């Protein structure tokens, strides 16, 4: 059966598209993973950078603190000067002026507690000075007596943004003055410079109020200016942190700062955002271009290779069609080893098919020859359109001309009317799933004698299991059928003859059997006559006698009936009967014969009915035959106990008759063939009895077998299915 072609997928992709997909599938995930790794790496690097920057800011603010602390220490030493204690302000001015250069300060000023400038190294001693008033630093120093540093403020003398570092001057424990060093923003620049920051970074030191104390870029412009409120809020919130912000000169930066716990000043470092993301964008751009290049190369290669593969496959389409049509295809040179192999395989398949075709032609011819020789008619019936094709042999068999159209009705019309319904039913069944059939029927050819036909049909099904067509052969079996019928007739005759012969042997005993009722009848009648002859006849007794006479007469009639049946040539129809009753009847028939031989039958018939479907006459024949054989076996030597057992018992789904004797048994060399015809141990005997018995058993779907008993004698068993057996 040819497999149905697989329906093509509606949008089956080409080789090129498939390969392109493969390239994409290979490159894109790798690129994505790389991107994720890069971003991840960037984040770690950025965190590292920020950490480093925080450390730098910390270093800057620490350096600032040290600077301020050093100035304070120097001022404290100066404040303890005897010149100041002695009130020699002129000498002190001179001394302080000498220290300004060492401290790198703009100037040193002395303030009394109400903010009056007592002296400033920027002015010659004695020159008039402005009054500062109660500046915040002064207030703080007076309040806690500790040195301090001011926020940025505009210098009263030079008008520039400055800050001052102040220490208290004590006399007898009380603060009488403060000594301050004034610094310009440039003073702290060196702290930033020490960190050697990248040139684009913005670095500032802010006072507690967020004003620029010094700045790496454009210091002159921004010194003393306050940074954005957002940054100021952040600065007060934590001592160290980072955030996005915008510098005073308008640059977007990432700000990192560190605040001094001593002074409250902060070092702020601004990393330009563009610098921070530059490496990431650079790496990502590189990655994207590399991935794009790989994709382009891969797709290009896919296009090229896909084209080659597609061409190689397409080049084989035509050869495959040619091979299918039976030609030997020429295989063009191909790009791939596999395609070449496929091409060679196609070529070999084509060669093989050519060979197979020629072989098939040969075997078809042989088949046709054989069919002709065997008078086999071959036919095919297409069930879809109900057309029939048949070989010439078949047409000859059924009496159709070579060109006569064949129809089912025309065919059925030639079937014997008695068989027509059965044939039609069998043919009909092929439409409903019967996979095959065998039938025998008669044909009535126009003007000819009936012919017997054996027909075998086999149904072919389609994919869905629906019957498609029936193929078959028909054969004229008239001769065989006649032989069979004759054989059957002969068998019947032989069986009947065997029965008659058997009954002949039994006749003496049967006569005796008949004698019993006759004796009873005669004696009863004569007794009645005597009763009636008496002067006062006992009529009740006479009536009873008459009843007995009737009973005995019927008994005699039954015996005669039974005999007539056994002698009858006609077989009885199968009927439902009780196996025990059958066995009982047989015992009645042979009882007297056995008695004459000094034997007796022990009937073991059980107490439950065993219904079987059987021909009673044939079964009686079997049982009588077995009992008589047993009788002969016992009679030869003096019998051991003279008892033959006839047992009737249920054996599963069957009734089992057993005839058991204790005679001579069966000679071992004879045992395997006692059921074969013409095997006998009797002087007078054809040796047909047991073979007929076995064929009767077989005709009843039963079995008959024999074996020798361990304690002597032989047993014969007849097993017949029960009428109600499943």
């Amino acid at each position: 059966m040819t497999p149905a072609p697989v329906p093509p997928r509606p949008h089956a992709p080409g080789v090129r598209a498939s390969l392109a997909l493969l390239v994409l599938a290979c490159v894109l995930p790798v690129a994505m993973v790389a991107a994720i790794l890069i971003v991840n790496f960037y984040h770690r690097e950025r965190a590292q950078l920020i950490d480093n920057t925080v450390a730098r800011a910390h270093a800057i603010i620490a350096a600032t603190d040290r600077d301020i602390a050093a100035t304070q220490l120097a001022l404290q030493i100066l404040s303890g000067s005897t010149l100041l204690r002695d009130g020699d302000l002129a000498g002190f001015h001179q001394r302080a002026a000498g220290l300004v250069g060492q401290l790198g300060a703009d100037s040193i000023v002395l303030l009394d507690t109400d903010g009056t400038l007592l002296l400033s190294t920027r002015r010659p001693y004695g020159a008039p000075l402005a009054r500062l008033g109660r500046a915040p630093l002064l207030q703080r120093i007076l309040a806690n007596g500790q040195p301090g540093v001011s926020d940025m403020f505009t210098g009263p003398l030079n008008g520039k943004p400055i800050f001052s570092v102040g220490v208290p001057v004590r006399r007898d424990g009380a603060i009488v003055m403060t000594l301050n060093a004034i610094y310009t923003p440039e003073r702290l620049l060196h702290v930033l410079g020490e960190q050697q920051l990248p040139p684009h970074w913005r670095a500032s030191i802010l006072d507690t109020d967020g004003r620029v104390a010094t700045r790496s870029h454009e210091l002159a412009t921004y010194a003393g200016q306050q940074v954005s409120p957002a940054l100021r809020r952040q600065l007060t919130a934590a001592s160290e942190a980072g955030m996005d912000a915008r510098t005073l000169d308008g640059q977007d930066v990432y700000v990192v700062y560190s605040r001094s716990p001593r002074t409250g000043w902060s070092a702020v470092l601004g990393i330009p955002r563009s610098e921070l993301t530059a490496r990431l964008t650079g790496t990502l751009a590189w990655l994207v271009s590399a991935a794009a290049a790989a994709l382009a190369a891969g797709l290009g290669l896919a296009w090229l290779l896909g084209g080659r593969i597609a061409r190689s496959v397409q080049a084989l389409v035509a050869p495959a069609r040619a091979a299918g049509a039976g030609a030997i295809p020429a295989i063009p040179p191909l790009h791939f080893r596999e395609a070449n192999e496929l091409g060679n395989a196609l070529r070999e398949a084509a060669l093989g098919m050519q060979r197979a075709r020629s072989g098939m032609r040969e075997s078809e011819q042989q088949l046709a020859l054989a069919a002709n020789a065997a008078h086999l008619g071959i036919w095919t019936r297409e069930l879809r359109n109900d057309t029939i094709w048949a070989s010439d042999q078949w047409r000859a068999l059924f009496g159709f001309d070579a060109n006569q159209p064949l129809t089912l009705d025309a065919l059925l019309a030639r079937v014997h009317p008695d068989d027509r319904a059965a044939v039609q039913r069998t043919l009909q069944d092929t439409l409903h799933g019967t996979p095959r059939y065998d039938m025998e029927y008669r044909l009535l050819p126009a003007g000819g004698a009936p012919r017997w036909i054996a027909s075998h049909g086999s149904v072919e099904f389609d994919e869905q299991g629906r019957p498609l067509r029936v193929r078959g052969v028909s054969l004229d079996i008239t001769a065989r059928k006649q032989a069979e019928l004759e054989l059957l007739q002969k068998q019947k005759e032989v069986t009947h003859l065997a029965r008659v012969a058997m009954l002949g042997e039994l006749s003496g005993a049967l006569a005796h059997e008949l004698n019993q009722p006759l004796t009873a009848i005669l004696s009863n009648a004569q007794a009645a006559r005597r009763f009636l002859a008496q002067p006062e006849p006992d009529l009740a007794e006479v009536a009873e006698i008459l009843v007995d006479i009737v009973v005995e007469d019927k008994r005699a009639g039954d015996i005669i009936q039974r005999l007539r049946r056994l002698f009858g040539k006609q077989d009885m129809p199968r009927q439902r009967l009780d196996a025990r009753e059958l066995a009982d009847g047989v015992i009645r028939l042979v009882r007297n014969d056995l008695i004459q031989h000094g034997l007796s039958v022990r009937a073991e018939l059980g107490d439950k009915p065993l219904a079987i479907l059987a021909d009673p006459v044939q079964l009686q024949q079997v049982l009588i035959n077995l009992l008589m054989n047993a009788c002969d076996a016992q009679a030869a030597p003096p019998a051991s106990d003279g008892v033959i057992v006839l047992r009737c018992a249920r054996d599963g789904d069957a009734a089992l008759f057993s005839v058991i004797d204790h005679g001579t048994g069966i000679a071992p060399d004879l045992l395997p063939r006692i059921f074969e015809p013409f095997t006998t141990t009797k002087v007078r005997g054809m040796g047909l009895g047991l073979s007929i018995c076995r064929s009767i058993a077989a005709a009843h779907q039963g079995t008959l077998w024999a074996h020798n008993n361990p304690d002597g004698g032989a047993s014969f068993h007849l097993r017949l299915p029960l009428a109600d057996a499943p």
Partner: protein
Amino acid sequence: MSGLVHLVDDQPAVRKALARLLGAAGFTVRAYAGAQDFLDALAGDADGCLVLDLSMPGMDGLALQRALAARAPQLPIIFLTGHGDIDSGVRAMKLGAADFLTKPVDDARLIAAIEAALEQRRQLRGADAELADIRQRLATLTPRETEVLELLVEGLLNKQVAAALGTVEKTVKVHRARVMAKMQVRSPTALVRLVDRARRG
């Protein structure tokens, strides 16, 4: 007409019919279903006669006849058979059967056979009584008298007897007179006939 008839037949219907017939003919009938039943019921030498079916399962008629030969030798047996089986009939008659009839049996023949058997039995019984009497008389003789009797029956004269026994004639004469008296005969001829009868029986 009367008498006792034993009837043995295994067929109930036949047994019943025959019993009825013989009963109507005036016999006393005892029926048995088999040989063994009859033997079981048998006490001593049975009276009457036996009507016996020849072929029966188990112990058949001939076997019963053999058994009865020892236990009841006086019982006449009339056989009934379903077959005209000559072999069996000859054997039965040799063994002393009174008659051998085939079934179905005519009542006249059967009754005649039974009556003949009973008559024979009766005669047999009379002869038996006579013989018993003679034997009883013989039993009263002394050993010496028996010796004398034996020799006298041989036909010896008194003188010869005396010589044979080694005694005198006078003594023999005394013994002879005693034997004659005990045997209740008057002549030597009658004595010889008596002894001869006793020996035959």
